[in-house]
């Protein structure tokens, strides 16, 4: 996922802001990490360069 994509991304459920946490990044893109929606208390993973923004249940704990 290219960083340039970030400004147009939002939570699929509440359409609010997402907070990016990068675990692995190369010269071109973010390969692994998370996009967190604080309003929904959901963490969406970025895996193999693909942000997984399928709607999901809130994180527990």
């Amino acid at each position, binding site marked *: *996922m*290219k960083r340039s994509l970030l400004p*147009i*991304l*939002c939570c*699929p459920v509440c*359409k609010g802001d*997402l907070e990016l946490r990068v675990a692995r990044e190369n010269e071109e893109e973010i390969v692994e990490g998370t996009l967190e929606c604080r309003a929904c208390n959901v963490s969406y993973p970025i895996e193999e360069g*693909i942000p997984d923004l*399928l709607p999901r249940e809130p994180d527990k704990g």
Partner: protein
Amino acid sequence: MPEDVFERYAKEYDHWFEEHREEYHAELARIRRLLPNPDSRAIEVGAGSGRFAAPLGIPLGIEPSHSLGLMARQRGIGVIRGRAESIPIRDESCSSVLMVTVICFLDDPVPAFCELHRILIPDGTFVIGFIERDGQIARKYKPEEGKRRFLSCARFYTPEEVRALLVKTGFRVDCTESVTGFCVIAARKD
């Protein structure tokens, strides 16, 4: 949507386009006529393995299947895993939206069309390609094993039904092209 089928049989899905090159290229050419110049803010919703977005120059795709998304990435498409009914894109971020052979897999097209309307800029273009109910293609693929795997749970629509859904969700229809049971409609956000 039968996501498990696309996840499980991603290679078979993608291979269909190799086995049916003539048909694929005919569909591609018809879509290109109605969506001639997608820009950097164009998106395909239900991008699959990138067989349409890549040759059309659409830089970004929404796709629920991770396996198909990886194939689309290999074709140079930026991929977001997501659903048409709850698109993770901000309002009025996209200049045009393409959706090909997706409507038949939606439980209800209305929430999806509302989301497409939301992400489009004012006067933005929505091009939809779909297999017509009782059309030549729907009849042809019923007995064919490969395509049947994917289409067995599909619900097909007539062009009139799709036009009515578009109007209901805030689009105005510019153009309808129906050939051999595959219909392409271009609409604009009203």
